[in-house]
């Protein structure tokens, strides 16, 4: 494929056009290589005595641009990466082992900590898995509330991605803007469940709490104001010559390669595979919402950026529809075997007290079986696989971590690129080490 690509950019030197907007000039990028973008062969050296020595360089685990405790050992020929060997595991704390010693509701706080930028989404994904294992149908109000929680956490996860990637590439302002918006969402979460980061928002069969009075007004205000911030970031980055020059043509994955490497989420869609778990294996009635899946065509860092930006807009569309359709009614299912009775009843009625005691001390027991639930997390296909032997604790609790699988393709993506581009490619994967190491 031809790697030469033209993107229109705005430069401070080109002045203002007739329409009062900055004039756009074509910028050629990606020249000098064939077959998937990067130039694999090192340029011929004019100083032959310097050839032939490869250098080993270690990035991380304490490097801010690795977004966590990731360590990349790079073999360099000059400035060109010849080989990349990633090392992970610095945050490993055995979530899956601990889960085998916890009741289902006690695992939910652990799901906060695996992908800590998407806490509510993880809580809900785990609850969906446990509900499949228990054979529970949740209430209509709970379904819509969960959609709201999942889309809000998608927005804040993408905002962190945009801000930190912009910092990696050299723009500081979008970081501040995105963290300001993120603060608004955290205030909403705090009003809903009382916690900001480690929310533990859901329970098996319902949510930890119903939304308080007036909460939807706050959400409406966010949905109204957030697209403006997003447009500002868009204007700041999308046609920015530095941004385009440092992202286009990097880390290219073709659609077949992306599927074969098991990439998911924006990584897969930027490569041109129209696969979104919400559309293709829907849950939480996502098929009834009107929204679209953005798909890239070039599979490079720039397309991943475009896909994520558009996903945030689509999330806002879903949020608007969810606010409009939020029905009244109970949030939790009416089943005392899995849902705790209200506190005032547990302290005044014998029956409720027994249910409370059994629920807390023994825990609800699912039938023998197994369930795999995958949701479209901001990073990709997040799966929870649970196996029950009929006791109150799972035999096996498995997290299918999307950024773990996405990161496994990094040696393929950085090969032949410059050392400085490794930072941009690594940032484009949107890794969260808490989820990778678990």
């Amino acid at each position, binding site marked *: 494929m031809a790697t030469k*690509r033209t993107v229109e950019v705005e430069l401070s030197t080109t002045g203002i056009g007739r329409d009062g907007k900055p004039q756009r000039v074509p910028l050629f990028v990606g020249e000098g290589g064939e077959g998937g973008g990067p130039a694999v062969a090192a340029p011929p050296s004019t100083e032959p005595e310097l050839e032939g020595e490869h250098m080993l360089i270690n990035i991380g685990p304490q490097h801010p641009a690795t977004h966590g405790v990731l360590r990349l050992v790079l073999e360099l020929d000059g400035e060109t990466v010849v080989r990349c060997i990633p090392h992970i595991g610095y945050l490993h704390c055995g979530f899956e082992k601990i889960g085998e010693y916890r009741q289902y509701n006690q695992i939910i706080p652990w799901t906060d900590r695996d992908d800590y930028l998407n806490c509510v989404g993880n809580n809900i994904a785990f609850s969906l898995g446990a509900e499949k294992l228990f054979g529970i149908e949740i209430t209509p109000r709970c379904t819509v509330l969960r959609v709201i929680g999942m889309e809000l956490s998608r927005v804040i996860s993408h905002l962190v991605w945009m801000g930190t990637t912009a910092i990696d590439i050299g723009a500081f302002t979008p970081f501040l803007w995105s963290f300001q918006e993120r603060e608004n969402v955290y205030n909403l979460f705090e009003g809903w469940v009382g916690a900001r980061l480690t929310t533990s928002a859901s329970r098996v069969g319902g949510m930890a709490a119903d939304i308080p009075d007036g909460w939807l007004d706050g959400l409406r205000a966010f949905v109204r104001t957030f697209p403006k911030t997003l447009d500002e970031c868009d204007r700041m980055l999308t046609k920015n010559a530095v941004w385009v020059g440092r992202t286009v043509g990097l880390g290219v994955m073709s659609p077949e390669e992306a599927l074969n490497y098991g990439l998911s989420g924006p990584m897969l869609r930027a490569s041109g*595979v129209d*696969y979104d778990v919400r559309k293709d294996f829907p849950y939480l009635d996502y098929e009834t919402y009107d929204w679209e899946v953005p798909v890239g065509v070039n599979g490079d860092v720039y397309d991943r950026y475009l896909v994520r930006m558009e996903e945030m807009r689509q999330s806002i569309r879903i949020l608007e529809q969810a606010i409009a359709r939020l029905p009244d009614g109970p949030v939790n299912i009416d089943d005392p075997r899995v849902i705790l009775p209200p506190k005032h009843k547990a302290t005044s009625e014998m029956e409720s007290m027994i249910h409370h005691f059994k629920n807390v001390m023994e825990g609800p027991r699912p039938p023998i079986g197994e369930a*795999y639930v995958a949701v479209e997390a901001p990073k990709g296909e997040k*799966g929870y696989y649970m196996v029950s032997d009929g006791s109150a604790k799972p035999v096996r609790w*498995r997290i299918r971590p999307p950024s773990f699988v996405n990161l496994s393709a990094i040696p393929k993506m950085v090969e032949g690129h410059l050392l400085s581009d490794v930072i941009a490619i690594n940032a484009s994967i949107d890794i969260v080490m808490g989820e990778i190491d678990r």
Partner: protein
Amino acid sequence: MSDFTVIHAGTAPGLPAPATPKNVPNRGGEANPSADALKAQFGDAIKRVDVVWGETNVTIDIARALDIVRWLHDDPSQSYEYLSDVTAVEFRDRGLPIEVIWHLRSIKYRRFLRLKGLIAKGQPLSVPSVWPVYKGADWLERECYDMFGIKFEGHPDLRRILLWEQYAEGFPLRKDFPLRGRFSRAEQLRQALSANPEARYSMEELSIADAFSELPLDMRARIKGGESTGE
């Protein structure tokens, strides 16, 4: 500008519109049509098919896992292009076999299939690697080896991934591994304090070209002698 064509999910004709599954029964229900196709294709290698919570489990002869997965991937009537997950399950009842699980997805037909291979107790923990078919299996199989000690034959680089290479306590997700670990806190601390930072590089990395000449003398001698970098 590019030779890429967008791959659309669910492109097979006659597919129903995807919908959120409701009121799924515990056992039974409609099985994934690939299960019957597998039976017709592989006969005895397919031991059992059951449907649990709407998901089709196909228990296979573990020695033929690679053939089966390759056929599922390559055959145009199946086209399972996407490997979601590779993992294993050991039950609390120690007599039950260890299960190796593959979660496969067909993007084209919007199908989900779970393959299971059973390793009876006392049998060697050895499974064919599906890495030749799915490159994404690389780290998933390494993690499964790291946690369960299951050897994936044919994997190009099977070493520990989340734990370090010199980890000596065993395989954490096995049921005979205590939650606190095998070693005492004092022993774990002693090992951490006496860890040699050079041991964090693999032999492969240390032998890379120029880096070798920058290593300390004693280490160069040890690597030349073929000794492991472990403490």
